[in-house]
């Protein structure tokens, strides 16, 4: 509560980000989502250093155990600790999600800005975007996995080769929505007076884009960044689930889910952990994105 008896406003002018944060705090779902996502990220980043078991530590005597104090999620058919595998899997899944999001965001922003700013490029680039939008994403991804898996595994080793392949293929098949949104915003911004003013004092195109256009399209980019992570995590898990992702001994959430499905009749509870992890992460990110969208929108923020 502000003190109405104060004669003069003593506070300094509020920055935009302060307003965004205030609005963001009002969206309870987004706040909870943000906290949950942050917790999951911390858990998978710090977990391997704290947790006593290794993800690939085989202990055949302790196989197929239920939950206990030493193994809170139980052990799998080779006696590997499921919790340790979940942490390792989450590490991969979230890293893939963030890397693929970064790639798709870079591509989308580049193409969106180029199409929106330079009228000559607009037609070509937007047809190109339409073509990519008409590609059937999942089948094309599966085909890419089939074709480039072995050469890349030979070139970079089975794990980092797959990592590169998955990140690149998710990245280049998911940049289209970002490009479209950015293009629309850039087209509107380009006609504004401050851009005209900047141009009239001789600012180069590159500087106009870097200083005036990009900071103003930051909010849609940030929103699509959060949704991009969720999308990439789901896609990577789907590929791993279909057995076309990372090699079998390399845990990711999708892979763990796939392994658990084979033991569905005997140990149905095993499906829960990776499935819940994926869903919880994606759900929290979606809520986060929802809140960010509201917070970034100046029309909603004023209310």
């Amino acid at each position, binding site marked *: 509560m502000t003190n109405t008896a104060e004669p003069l406003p003593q506070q300094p002018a509020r920055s935009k980000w302060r307003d965004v944060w205030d609005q963001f705090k009002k969206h309870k779902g987004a706040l909870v989502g943000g906290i949950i996502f942050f917790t999951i990220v911390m858990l998978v980043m710090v977990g391997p250093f704290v947790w006593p078991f290794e993800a690939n530590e085989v202990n055949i005597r302790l196989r197929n155990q239920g939950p206990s104090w030493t193994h809170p999620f139980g052990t799998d058919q080779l006696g590997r600790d499921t919790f340790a595998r979940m942490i390792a899997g989450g590490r991969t899944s979230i890293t893939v999600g963030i890397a693929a999001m970064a790639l798709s965001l870079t591509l989308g922003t580049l193409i969106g800005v180029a199409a929106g700013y330079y009228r000559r490029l607009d037609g070509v680039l937007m047809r190109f975007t*339409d*073509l990519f*939008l*008409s*590609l*059937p*994403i*999942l*089948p*094309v991804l*599966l*085909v*890419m*996995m*089939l*074709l*480039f898996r*072995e*050469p890349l595994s030979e070139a970079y080793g089975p794990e980092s080769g797959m990592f590169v392949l998955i990140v690149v293929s998710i990245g280049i098949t998911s940049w289209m929505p970002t490009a479209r949104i950015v293009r629309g915003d850039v087209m509107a911004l380009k006609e504004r007076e401050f851009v005209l003013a900047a141009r009239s004092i001789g600012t180069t195109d590159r500087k106009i884009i870097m200083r005036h256009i990009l900071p103003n399209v930051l909010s849609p980019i940030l929103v699509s960044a959060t949704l991009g992570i*969720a999308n990439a995590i*789901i896609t990577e*898990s*789907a590929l791993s*689930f*279909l*057995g*076309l992702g990372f090699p079998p001994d390399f845990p990711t959430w*999708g892979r763990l*889910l796939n392994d*658990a*499905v084979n033991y*569905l*009749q005997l140990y*149905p509870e095993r*499906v*829960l952990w*990776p*499935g*819940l992890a*994926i*869903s919880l992460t*994606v*759900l929290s990110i*979606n*809520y986060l994105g*929802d809140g960010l969208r509201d917070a970034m929108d100046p029309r909603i923020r004023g209310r």
Partner: protein
Amino acid sequence: MLTFTIRRLLISIPTLLFISLVIFLLLNLAPNDPMAQVPLTVPPEVKEKMREALGLGQPIYIQFAKWLMQFFWIEPQVLIDHIFGTTFSEGDLRVISWQTRSPVMDIVIQRIPQTLWVVGMSYVVGILIALPIGIYSAYRHYSVFDQAGTFVTMIGYSIPPFFTGPLVIVIFAVQLGWLPSTYDTLHQVIDWDTFVVQLKQMILPVMVLALQTTAQISRYMRASMLDNLNQDYVRTARAKGLSEWTVVMVHVLRNSMIPVVTVIALNLPAIFGGAIITEQIFKVNGIGQQLIGAIYANDLPTVQTLTFMFAFLIVFFNLIADILYGLLDPRIRYD
């Protein structure tokens, strides 16, 4: 409107050609040897012969032209022959699967009904659930029902089918034992009992796919209803003394359906793509499972054909959505 439709049709032809080129090049320029599975004891000159028999010796543009010819000229002829009993396609080479050595399209035709049944049914069920939810949550904006609806749609967005699938299997097939966990495609409906069995085995896959449809469509329905509920014509209708039911279900609903119908058309191909995973979980032998099988077996002609068919569906339904928009909304007549 007619000129628009024709123009739009003409635009989709180069789009399709380009997509087929991309898919073709992706498959053919990739470092991948179809002869990799052939035993090492086969002498190299025999291998070369086999390679030529598969049409791999020729330059890439001839291969592409031949594939186009096979796909767009010979396969439709086969279809016409099949329907009318004519003999246009006799002696022509068709797209042959490397896996089964039989024409790819024959297998596709065998498998499409299963996919259509499961996917189509789930889409219908999803829409039937989604529309009332969307309408009611918009009408009671910010009510408990609306909040719950938002939460359920968020869950529908966030929980991927490869988790809901095993989850419903665990609950309904393993724990409760009410429903079968796999889809038996050999099952034939001849009387009431077999119909019940068929119904039971369809519930789980349809449920999993319908959850996603419901989440998306109800979201659009709600947003579109909200846009329309504040319009002036709604106030006019209420002022005229029309009943609340007529105002909402006739005036507002009809206007709100315009974007929703196009979204329904646009999302249909994506559902086919998503069905790949659901088919895999419930062992439905539809075209999605055929694609996965072909990918595991390195069967490039089948992969190429199916991927192109998925792309064709997307382009086709984009076209339908564009035309529907113009037809339904007199404000957006394109010419």
